[in-house]
């Protein structure tokens, strides 16, 4: 058993703060329990690990309250509710298991804060499927990386260090020769794509909302069609033709995109143009998708929801069995149309993820550092998984799940403990 009162440097810490789940950090703890990232951090992990968490009491109607009273108060709200909505869901596997248990009991609807982007991918999966890969494959095989409409690193800071510019690889590749193409988007910071020898990535920018045209054109070219237009959304057709050729000769190309960043109507069709391009390429060579994500537990909670209920989130237990509707059961829609009557908002990793503005009675279970524009009816600060208590998180690729550890002494309960207590008190 660790003695959390002692100062210490913990090695090989798994960082829960983005979908890469780097597991090589050194985190130092002083006698007061403050954490400092030593080796292998990034700016994001430093912000998140080193954020102080003042010992904080729950609040009932804005007043300090005991945990017991806050739990009883939450149970009271939920007992009276007809259509509770449990949203945010910034948590890990064990927390999500408790969420699904409570939702089943209450007949609640569940949704995640990043569903808007996540659903763009999921709609494609459920319509046509896809071919994807995982981080260790990318690290050892990618020879052509096509990055679509994102810089990657603002979501996943160590992406290039971990899986693109790694020095050693398994199959004799000179990783410094890997080709990077940024396709679409504007004013994207492409410095992370510069090779160790200074070679610059290719950048083919376009206005973000014109990405659909570019993705459709690339798919057509890879399928062997000819385009009459000389340019697509400002990108020369010849440049896209060249890219299509490179994709066909590459041995293991990888496409990556952030569905969250594709903020235009029917972005799922753009995702589908990418994934269908990959399918075509695989008729003759190998190519894979690597959709970005995993932050705030979005991959983890959808995994848990799928095995517990059969469906990802945007699922309602209201009729006694799970029902899934990626449009109808969105947080925004349920709140806007007045279909939910209590909001339970969960964000255990990020204090910045506060609930949407609403007149609904609101219970927040979250990071103790949360600051609200609008004080919720009940606020129960809970521990940060991977700092205050153990847990399990899935990485962005949905395959590797890693344990996250406790790093310091904490008086904060875990989300799972609070939810179980609320369920008991019903």
């Amino acid at each position: 058993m660790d003695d959390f009162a002692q100062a210490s440097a913990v090695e090989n810490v798994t960082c829960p703060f983005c979908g890469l789940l780097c597991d090589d950090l050194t985190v130092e703890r002083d006698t007061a329990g403050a954490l400092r990232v030593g080796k292998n951090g990034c700016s994001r992990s430093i912000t998140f690990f080193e954020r102080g968490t003042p010992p904080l009491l729950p609040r009932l109607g804005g007043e300090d309250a005991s945990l017991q009273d806050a739990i009883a108060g939450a149970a009271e709200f939920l007992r009276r509710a007809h259509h509770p909505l449990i949203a945010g869901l910034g948590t890990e596997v064990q927390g999500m298991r408790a969420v699904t248990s409570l939702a089943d009991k209450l007949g609640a609807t569940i949704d995640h804060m990043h569903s808007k982007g996540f659903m763009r991918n999921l709609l494609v999966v459920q319509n046509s499927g896809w071919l994807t890969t995982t981080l260790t494959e990318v690290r050892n095989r990618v020879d052509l990386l096509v990055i679509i409409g994102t810089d990657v690193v603002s979501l996943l800071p160590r992406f290039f260090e971990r899986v693109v510019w790694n020095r050693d690889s398994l199959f004799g590749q000179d990783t410094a020769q890997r080709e990077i193409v940024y396709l679409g988007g504007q004013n994207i910071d492409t410095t992370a794509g510069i090779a160790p020898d200074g070679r610059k990535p290719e950048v083919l920018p376009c206005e973000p909302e014109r990405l659909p045209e570019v993705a459709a054109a690339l798919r057509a070219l890879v399928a062997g069609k000819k385009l009459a237009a000389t340019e697509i959304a400002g990108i020369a057709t010849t440049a896209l033709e060249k890219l299509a050729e490179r994709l066909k000769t590459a041995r293991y190309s990888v496409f990556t995109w952030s569905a969250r960043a594709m903020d235009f109507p029917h972005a799922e069709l753009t995702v589908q143009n990418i994934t269908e391009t990959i399918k075509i390429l695989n008729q003759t060579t190998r190519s894979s998708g690597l959709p970005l994500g995993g932050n705030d537990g979005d991959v983890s909670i959808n995994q848990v929801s799928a095995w517990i209920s059969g469906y990802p989130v945007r699922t309602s237990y209201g009729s006694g069995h799970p029902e899934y509707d990626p449009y109808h059961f969105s947080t925004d829609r349920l709140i806007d149309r007045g279909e939910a009557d209590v909001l339970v908002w969960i964000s255990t990793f990020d204090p910045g993820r506060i609930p949407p503005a609403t007149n609904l009675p609101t219970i927040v279970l979250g990071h103790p550092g949360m600051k609200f524009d609008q004080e919720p009816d009940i606020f129960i600060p809970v521990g940060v998984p991977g700092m205050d208590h153990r847990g399990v998180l899935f990485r962005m690729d949905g395959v590797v799940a890693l344990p996250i550890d406790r790093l310091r002494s904490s008086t904060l309960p875990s989300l799972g403990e609070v939810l179980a207590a609320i369920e008991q008190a019903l």
Partner: protein
Amino acid sequence: MLLKLTGGTVYDPAHGIDGQVMDIYVRDGRIVDRPREGERIDQEYDLTGKVVMAGAIDMHTHIGGGKVNIARTLLPEDHRGDPVDHTELTRAGCGHVAPSTLTTGYRYAEMGYTAGFEPAVLPLNARQAHLEMGDTPIIDKGGYVMLGNDDLFLRMLAAQKDQNAINDYVAWIIHATQAMGIKVVNAGGISAFKFNQRMLDLDEKNAYYQVTPRQVLKTLARAVYELGVPHPLHVHGNNLGVPGNVETTLNTIAGVEGYPLHLTHIQFHSYGTEGDRKFSSGAARIAEAINRNKHVSADVGQILFGQTVTASGDNMSQFRNAGHAHPDKWICMDIECDAGCGVVPFKYKDQNFVNALQWAIGLEIFLLVEDPWRIFLTTDHPNGAPFTSYPHLIRLLMDKTFRNEIFSRIHPDAQKMSTLASIDREYSLYEIAIMTRAGAARLVGLHDRGHLGVGAAADITVYTDDPDREKMFAKPDYVFKDGELVVRNGKVVKVTWGATHAVKPEFDRGIEKEIAKYFDTYHTVKMDHVKVTEQHIAEDGRNHVIVQACKGRRERTA
């Protein structure tokens, strides 16, 4: 707590008991000989006229892990057809081809099953498999971990590493993933697909490592044997679904030099190329080979007509077959220089020649393999059909009239290509008890399950003898799990959580140095973080690991 199960007709093949009327006593979850002097019987069940067997064991069923959850996510339309409401006792979920974990546990128990083994645990995805199995109530669980397409093993093989070093690595993987055995899927082929090879026959070389599936199979079969792991190497052969693959399968049997081998879903690997359509039954040749080779066992992977989903580690084959997807959507994945997966929904139709013949081939194998201790009842859930169709399958085996009636309705050309109607065999209750209980437990290495002898765990199923075997096996009167009544009249009456079985073969831990360095240099996780510990499995507050004995490490055999 002492239970008495009085006067049932008992089928307990592990002890040669074939329909004998007897009493069974259960104290604190275990079967005992008789009450102690003056010991009070707390509860008695009158089982006069009832059929009593050990709880059934599904030795190959895809119930947990990445590809199963992908299948769930892929098919909301299928779930909508089988919603499961929550009750006072049980939680909500969904059923049919890729049921939720909760529904999976309830429904297995309601069919009299008390254990199920996930046959395709990927080392780098083992944590997910155990999380899902941990959320599968009532039944016991366990997994076979996949090797033979992972870079480290292929690298060791290519470097002609000493068998002892390989054994150490294999044992390390078993420990790290809390597994019951080793499975190999399309040996070397999943890896070859990553190098853009599209087929890999038994003696064809993987383009990068220059090793053949035959070498992979032999080395792993030997490792499993020498480590004393009770479950033989579990083999999903090369060339799944390819007409003519019967030759590959026969060569596979011959290729392991007598080491124990379990061939899974062998129906999918028993195809010839005769006839106008160049697709024929290899069942007779396969059955003959199994009958002759006592070191070989198989489960059938029977297909049954209707919608299902195929979920496999074999993405090389799944990609090849993706054109048949119904509905038209599918997923393939390369995984961590370790494995792969492919999920393709599929609808088997009795008026489709190939599907109809697949159905007949599976049944031919069941009926032509003579020794029920070496052939096992599976649909390779959900690949051939969902597990909920087992009672129907049992009736097909036990009832010739029923079988022939269905046979007469399948595609006429398939009827012409099959000898099924000429096979008179009907399985007896004793034989069913062997293949679903005693034999399965012995094969998996569950020393205290699958039988009703003194000291066994009291996993017991009680049926009403009914000539309609489908009805009988669909709805047991009672199911006891570790001595607790969990099902009455085919409905869950108590939710327990079962346990996870694993083996712990001895090995030289010195191997960890090499493995750790390998992970540090090439992978994106640390070796230590790959490990699933017993504590991790117990962390949900209800599951725990039961360690089943290995017979002890053998000296090198050659």
